[in-house]
């Protein structure tokens, strides 16, 4: 049963997942190409100075990448379910409706975590190649909310897409957009450290929001 749901989600998302992951890796690669370029032409110590004291955020090219990936995966996963009200097929399966939805959600979370882990590992390794541990640590603290934003965008996009009535969909979209902005406050590298756990908590809070849209659908709001 779980295998079947994972199989369906995999069929929907595999190519987009691959494309989005490659684009993410290319974006990370591009960040360090620029770093390499700057260091080659302006000396490493000058660049370190800018990064350490002038808030030069070499990683800012990563800012919206996790968001785009989270958004993309959610769209690819849930638009086919709501097209022609296909989600009815899931509700007719001989499995508890919420369990089926949570399995779909869990699939999305797992593939996003894998994709993000790949990007973070590549980002960390390349950062360590060019910078000292303190700079890398500050950069990781700074990029962490962006990955949380990607995860929150995944959950909230699922909520918006699975809602069948347009006026609610628009209201959810506006609320979700405002919510996502929390994750993109500007600050010095590492300035987010005290906030990150709160943002993680917020992300967790919206994680099951899609089940509300699905519940409304099941009760005839379609």
């Amino acid at each position, binding site marked *: *049963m779980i*295998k*079947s749901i994972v*199989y*369906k989600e995999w*069929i*929907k998302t595999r190519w987009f997942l691959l494309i989005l992951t490659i684009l993410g890796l290319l974006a990370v690669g591009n960040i360090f190409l620029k770093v390499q370029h700057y260091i080659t032409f302006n000396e490493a110590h000058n660049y370190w100075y800018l990064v350490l004291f002038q808030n030069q955020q070499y990683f800012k090219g990563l800012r919206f990448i996790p968001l785009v990936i989270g958004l993309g995966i959610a769209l690819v996963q849930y638009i*086919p379910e709501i097209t*022609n*009200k*296909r989600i*009815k*097929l899931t*509700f*007719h*399966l*001989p*499995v*508890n409706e919420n369990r089926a939805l949570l399995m779909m959600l869990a699939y999305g979370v797992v593939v996003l975590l894998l994709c993000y882990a790949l990007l973070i590992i590549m980002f960390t390794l390349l950062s360590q190649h060019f910078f000292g541990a303190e700079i890398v640590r500050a950069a990781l603290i700074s990029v962490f909310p962006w990955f949380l934003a990607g995860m929150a965008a995944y959950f909230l996009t699922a909520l918006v897409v699975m809602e069948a009535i347009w006026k609610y969909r628009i209201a959810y979209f506006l609320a979700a957009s405002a919510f996502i902005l929390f994750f993109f406050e500007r600050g010095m590298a590492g300035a987010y450290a005290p906030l990150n756990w709160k943002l993680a908590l917020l992300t967790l809070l919206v994680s099951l929001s899609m089940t509300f849209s699905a519940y409304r*659908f*099941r*009760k*005839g709001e*379609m």
Partner: protein
Amino acid sequence: MNNVIECKNLTHYYGKKLVYENLNFNVREGSILGLLGKNGAGKTTTINILHGFLQPREGECLIYGENTQELSPQTKSRIGFLIEGHVQYAFMDIHQIEKFYSGFYPNWNREPYWELMSKLKVDPNQKISSMSCGQRSQVALGLILAQEPDLLILDDFSMGLDPGYRRLFIDYLRSYAKSENKTIFATSHIVQDMERLIDDVLIMDYNRVLAHSPIDKFMTGFKQFSFKLGDTSVDLAKEEFVVNLERVNKDVELYTYESEEFVKGFLDKSGIPYENFSAVPMGLEDAFIGLTGKY
């Protein structure tokens, strides 16, 4: 004989608009019931309640004794649902979709599915989204048959199908249902399709049930008579035995459950002049229109 579906005292409104009040009907085990009604008569509402996607304002529908709003996975595994438009996972091909569904049903029987698929001229890797409406209907039907359900709920199964596919769908379905003692609840906009398929008919009109009986009983009991009236000022429509009456000048089409002798006797006894009286043979579609009216 047990009832597989029992709907009791269903009342539903959309806003203030009444769909129906105190609707009651049952579907017997092993029977094929066709729900007929004009647009807006409440067919989709009934289907949505049966699917568990709509909570009626009052009353309840039970399938195998369970409220349709709260069907257990065990009961759902006994039901094959066909969604209007033969909706399926169009992003899959016929192998992928069979593999997907087979994981959910312990009695999965791939034979009828592949038998139907062999009749389709589709590439094995062709996505369902690129198939014709008729081919998609066969995929949806094959998947339902492979589930080995005890009850099939088919919503507007003939929608978008050409006559050949409709006939294939109906003949296959009826022979399957009868050989395996399956119960079917079906709706269709194409009434003549139902005639070949169903055992029992349920005809709904706005807010009420017009007929609910075995199809043979309905077709023999409900009659159409045509005649020319000698006096056009006579108003037969208000007579109790007249179910519906269509009149163009002197030409009358009268629909009733009474016999030819009764109607003739009434006309003679009331001194209403008429000529060219004849009983008109009807198909289900004629009877449906006769019962519900053309408008």
